[in-house]
Structures are given as structure tokens and as C-alpha cells.
């Protein structure tokens, strides 16, 4: 079950619809610049997340859209969930190394503190992407508030 505490991690201030990145490196750099002043991430975040994505890619091609869930441990000060709906899709390698590169239209960066944390949350998020209507509803939103509402209403 997704707890109220989990839902509090979704915040419009951490939804970015104006990031335009040519590749994952640029995406992480730009996202880091947004997260850093807010105190969420440690100095090693950028190198940790890049390395993690290179070693264990997180692109997921669902039936409706490409998503990516980049994350790394030991580089987060306080738990957060950042959502990027990039101006142009960003190419991620597929999780598990099988299949084609994934053109990610939605990137969810789970900033987690403890190993094994937020399993219910991840499962809840993946359920949204298994549901075409729920996914389309998220993607049709054009404001951070709309995106947060479209996601959290499906998790409650």
C-alpha cells in the first residue's frame, strides 16, 4: 500500500516540464541544477546517477509510452520524487539490457534514502503505466499540479 508519507513525496515544485536535453548526461546535469539548490541531493549525485544508469539502465518501454526511472543510492540528503516531462523525449537504454533504446517521454527520478525503500510506491507507479487511460491522463497534463494530481489520484 502507498502510504500518506509516500504521497507527500510528490510535489509540484519537483515536476519539470521545461527541461530540454539532448541525452541522459545533459538531462541529469539540468535536473541536478534544479534539485541542488533545494537541498535534496549530495555533491556526488550527478556522478552517481550517471554511473548507475550506465551500469544498470532504467528505460522501460510500456505499451503506451517510454518511461525511465533513473536513481542511485548514497547521494540523497532527503527523500524526494522528481518528475521530468522533457520538451523532447530523451533516449535511455532499456532496463535489463534487452530490446531497443527507449525514447523516454516521462522520467521519474526516485530519490530514496534506504535500500528497499518505496517498493509500494514503485509498484503503484508501474501500475499506472500498465493502464493506458491512466498513462494518457498523466501525459495530457501540462502543469506540474496537473501531473501530480493525475499520478497521486491513482495511487490512493
Amino acid at each position: 500500500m502507498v502510504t500518506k508519507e509516500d504521497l507527500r513525496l510528490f510535489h509540484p515544485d519537483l515536476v519539470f516540464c521545461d527541461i530540454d536535453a539532448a541525452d541522459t548526461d545533459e538531462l541529469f546535469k539540468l535536473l541536478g541544477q534544479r534539485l541542488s539548490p533545494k537541498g535534496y541531493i549530495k555533491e556526488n549525485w550527478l556522478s552517481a546517477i550517471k554511473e548507475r544508469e550506465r551500469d544498470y539502465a532504467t528505460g522501460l518501454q510500456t505499451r503506451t509510452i517510454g518511461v525511465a526511472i533513473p536513481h542511485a543510492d548514497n547521494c540523497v540528503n532527503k527523500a524526494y520524487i522528481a518528475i521530468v516531462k522533457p520538451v523532447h523525449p530523451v533516449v535511455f537504454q532499456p532496463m535489463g539490457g534487452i530490446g531497443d533504446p527507449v525514447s523516454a517521454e516521462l522520467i521519474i527520478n526516485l530519490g530514496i534514502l534506504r535500500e528497499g525503500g518505496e517498493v509500494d510506491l514503485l509498484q503503484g507507479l508501474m501500475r499506472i503505466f500498465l493502464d493506458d487511460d491512466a498513462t494518457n491522463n498523466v501525459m495530457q497534463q501540462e502543469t506540474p499540479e496537473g501531473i501530480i494530481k493525475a499520478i497521486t489520484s491513482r495511487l490512493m
Partner: protein
Amino acid sequence: MKQYKILGVCGAGLSTSTTVARMLQQGMEKRNMPAQIRTCKVIEATGTIKGYDPDVILSTVATTSFENPSDAKVFSGVPLLTGVGASKLLDDIVEYLKSKGDE
């Protein structure tokens, strides 16, 4: 009734392994195949496989990124996250486990 052992393997930190292992467990329970789950990081995989002796291994990292010292088959758990090919994967795993017999 045999209690099957599922091992989920993922990179580290985020529990994609727990998520896929749980989804498999739920799918198997619907087919009256009770299962317990355990998860580990890829760097711990070889040791955990030796100690836990799973019936089936589900990985969200490349299935070639760790050594599997057992005869348990390694499946990619990614279809359970994307939904694409998920029911076929469940069927394949159930068939695999049944073909192994109740040992």
C-alpha cells in the same frame, strides 16, 4: 504443497527486484503455487543464489551480469514492470517450475 523460492536481482538501492518478485509471487499464488521471495543486489547475487537455492531467478539487470552457480533458470523481470509480455512471462515461469517437478 511445495513452497517455491523466488530470487529477485537488481542493481542496488531501488527495489525493482522486490517489485518484480512480488508481482511474480502474486501471479503464482493465483495459480495455487505458493512462493516466498528474497531479493539481492547484483553484486551479491552469486553468493545469495548459493545460500538461498532459489527455484527461479528474476533479474531487472542484464541476466549475464552475474554468475549463476545453480541450475535455477534466470528470467528477465522487466516485462512485469512494463506490462509488455508480462502474462507470457508468468506463463513461461509457471511452466518452467512445473516442468522441474516437485523435487
